[in-house]
């Protein structure tokens, strides 16, 4: 059940009441039972997989400090989990054909694989085993608490990816205070606003561009690719707001995943602010070890680390060539930034700081958008069509309204253009006020006016259909 579905949001207060009336030491059991119910009720296969995977990881982690061959246990566990993850990605890939064979054999592959949260908790399991091996944390003694770490409903589907050392202790005695409630409520409403008012309105606009790229002018395709970046941000950060807000209602603090990434002035800053928990995981468990191993090679070690990290990140997102190009583009951007650090500092000194910063922000946004063209394109043929469209005349010979706005709006009618205009106004107002909105919530105060204005806008202008279509659920 998606976190923004009305049945879930209606059931949440009931769960919270049950949680509050349970003695603090047993509250984690309530969370565990509800998490398993949430997964198993809709996807029994997913429940079976998460239980098996957690049992395996728990047993391996317990065995590492006790047995004679800890390194062997670690390696076998990591290889098995890695193979499972690769196999999942391979089956999901449209090119593999395996999915169709399974479907023909009567398997409902959508039920087995999709929205499983598998790729998210597998990364957490791998990180956990490595941490236990290196003695950074002690292996969890309670298997059910470890199962809760894997299956906690607020973060199960798409993260944030949590460090076990941060999350596991919080399950011992969750005791939300009024400040948690106030914070949680405000984050939930903000998440719903971003999802239902911004991301869900952007979705059809983006689909029109990516679905009809062959007939569009270059400006329309450019706008569509940029709007996709905004959609991805609103959609995924909305999911994270919901996850963080819901967890906070139960006294659990999840990690932040976004920190105003659209205002980044370099790609490296962008990656410190976008999907933070994933990039932290990759940095900790791939980038640092690679750079450390190859430290004698100087700059080459950094480039190798960046390239490998993004290659694995690309595969984690999907097996297609488009994800490979997406990841290589980011590796290229970061390599260039790493090599040109001093040159860029020299440029920065020559221009007024505001001008240079604005230019850098614009350039970063364009570079990220360009890579997202491949991220969103379903396959190389579509990516090629989009690239070809980028070289076409700006308005496809039909003028500004019919050639540029109408394809985005879904028609040149006044109603379609009015809706597109309204969406742009909401987006611009929100992006302008975003830092202030978060700053207010983070003070710990309860801003009733802000909360009810957002609620009002959700109820009056939100999209209430296709609520379960968070983009990152597919990963």
């Amino acid at each position, binding site marked *: 059940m998606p976190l923004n579905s*009305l049945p879930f949001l209606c059931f949440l207060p009931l769960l919270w009441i049950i949680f509050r009336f349970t003695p603090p030491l047993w509250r984690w059991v309530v969370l565990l039972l509800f998490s398993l119910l949430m997964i198993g009720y809709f996807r029994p296969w997913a429940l079976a997989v998460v239980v098996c995977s957690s049992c395996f990881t728990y047993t391996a982690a317990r065995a590492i400090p006790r047995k004679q061959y800890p390194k062997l246990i670690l390696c076998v566990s990591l290889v098995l989990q890695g193979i499972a993850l690769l196999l999942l990605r391979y089956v999901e890939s449209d090119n593999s054909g395996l999915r169709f064979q399974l479907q023909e054999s009567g398997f409902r592959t959508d039920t087995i694989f999709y929205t499983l949260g598998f790729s998210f908790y597998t990364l957490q399991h791998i990180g956990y085993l490595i941490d236990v091996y290196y003695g950074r944390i002690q292996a969890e003694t309670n298997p059910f608490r470890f199962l809760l770490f894997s299956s906690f409903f607020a973060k199960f589907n798409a993260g944030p990816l949590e460090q076990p050392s941060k999350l596991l202790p919080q399950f011992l005695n969750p005791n939300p205070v*009024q400040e948690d*409630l*106030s914070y949680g409520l405000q984050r939930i409403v903000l998440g719903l606003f971003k999802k239902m008012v911004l991301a869900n*309105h952007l979705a059809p606009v983006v689909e029109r561009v990516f679905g*009809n790229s062959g*007939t569009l002018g270059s400006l329309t395709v450019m706008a569509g690719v940029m709007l996709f970046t905004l959609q991805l941000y609103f959609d995924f950060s909305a999911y994270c707001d919901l996850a963080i807000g819901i967890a906070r209602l139960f006294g659990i603090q999840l990690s932040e995943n976004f920190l105003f990434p659209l205002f980044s002035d370099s790609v490296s800053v962008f990656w410190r602010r976008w999907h933070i928990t994933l990039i932290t995981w990759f940095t900790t468990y791939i980038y640092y070890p690679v750079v450390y191993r190859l430290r004698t090679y100087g700059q080459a070690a950094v480039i190798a680390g960046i390239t490998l990290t993004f290659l694995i990140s690309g595969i984690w997102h999907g097996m297609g060539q488009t994800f490979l190009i997406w990841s290589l583009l980011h590796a290229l951007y970061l390599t260039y930034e790493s090599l040109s650090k001093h040159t860029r500092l020299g440029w920065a000194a020559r221009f007024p700081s505001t001008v240079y910063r604005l230019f850098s922000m614009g350039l970063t946004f364009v570079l990220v958008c360009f890579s997202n063209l491949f991220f969103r394109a379903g396959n190389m043929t579509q990516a090629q069509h989009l690239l070809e469209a980028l070289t076409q005349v700006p308005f496809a010979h*039909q003028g500004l309204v019919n050639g540029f706005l109408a394809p985005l709006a879904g028609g040149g009618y*006044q*109603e379609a253009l*009015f*809706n597109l205009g*309204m969406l742009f106004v909401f987006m611009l107002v929100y992006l302008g006020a975003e830092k202030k909105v978060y700053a207010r919530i983070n003070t710990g105060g*309860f801003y*009733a006016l802000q*909360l*009810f204005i957002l*609620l*009002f806008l959700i*109820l*009056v*202008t*939100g*999209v*209430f*259909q296709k609520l379960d279509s968070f983009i990152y659920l597919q990963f």
Partner: protein
Amino acid sequence: MYRKIGIGLVVLFTSLWGLEKTYDYFLSRNMNLKPAYITRHRIDADVIFLGPCEPLWMMDPDAFTKVTGLTAYNLATVHASFAENESMLHLYLDHNKAPKYIFLYVTTESLDGAFNVFNTYAFAPYLNQEWIAGRVAEEDSVYNRYRKLPFMKYGFYSDYVHFGFVQGVRHVWNKREEPYFKNGYVPPHDMVWDGRLERFIAQYPKGRHFNWNARDVKHLKAILEQARISNIQVILYESPMLNEVKPYILNREEIKQKITTFARENQVPYWVFDTMQISRSRDYFFSILNTNKLGSDIFNRTFAAYFEEKKMNMRDKTRFNQ
């Protein structure tokens, strides 16, 4: 905090309730919306054209009147399923004299169930009418579950109502009583080729089988029954379809035969215009099933002349033969 939440909720629900009433008022006074126009003005036409976008953009009541002398109104709406046609007809008959004839567009596509829908939001201001509320509940159960929450009857499909509301405010402000398209016909003046044929062929390179959707058939029958009670002659018709697409509709003849049988069983005529000359060239079309202005003008003249001819040949003075 709890006090603030309590007060906030009261203010929120009150303002949503107020907004809902405001939308009720202005949407039902937006003369460009057909439900609003037909329920606030007596049209009392002799002939009604009913169906989805094909008749909306093809059937010109004025052209028909010019040839036949009968007053006509185009009641078709975009993407409308037979359930929506039935609801529109119900609203029309509630506020107007029953017409003598209804021309109802029926084709392989309109009976498939995948191409036309029940546009629930169009009936939101009329949910206080039991019949409409029942039809909405039947056709859109998810919407029906939430529509009783404050403003949700508009909020659920908000994309489709805000512009109508703004336009309604303008119409009230300007005391406007006539719609932009007075006879309901939307002439396809600036329509350019929409590429739907290419997309259809790309999606179904070997062609597509069309369904005989039981739900659509049920509502089609209900329209005929509604017309029978009101003593209206219904004539089913299919307008010209671009010949290029026909090879890709694999069971077109089979569905056409089914429609013919259906028409015979229900004792209504079924007129098919798919062999008209204009079907052979894209010069007369902007989409697979939609003629452009030139094509529409030719078709309207042909249609009206055909009607006159059939009327003259009537054996029974009150009913057409097939």
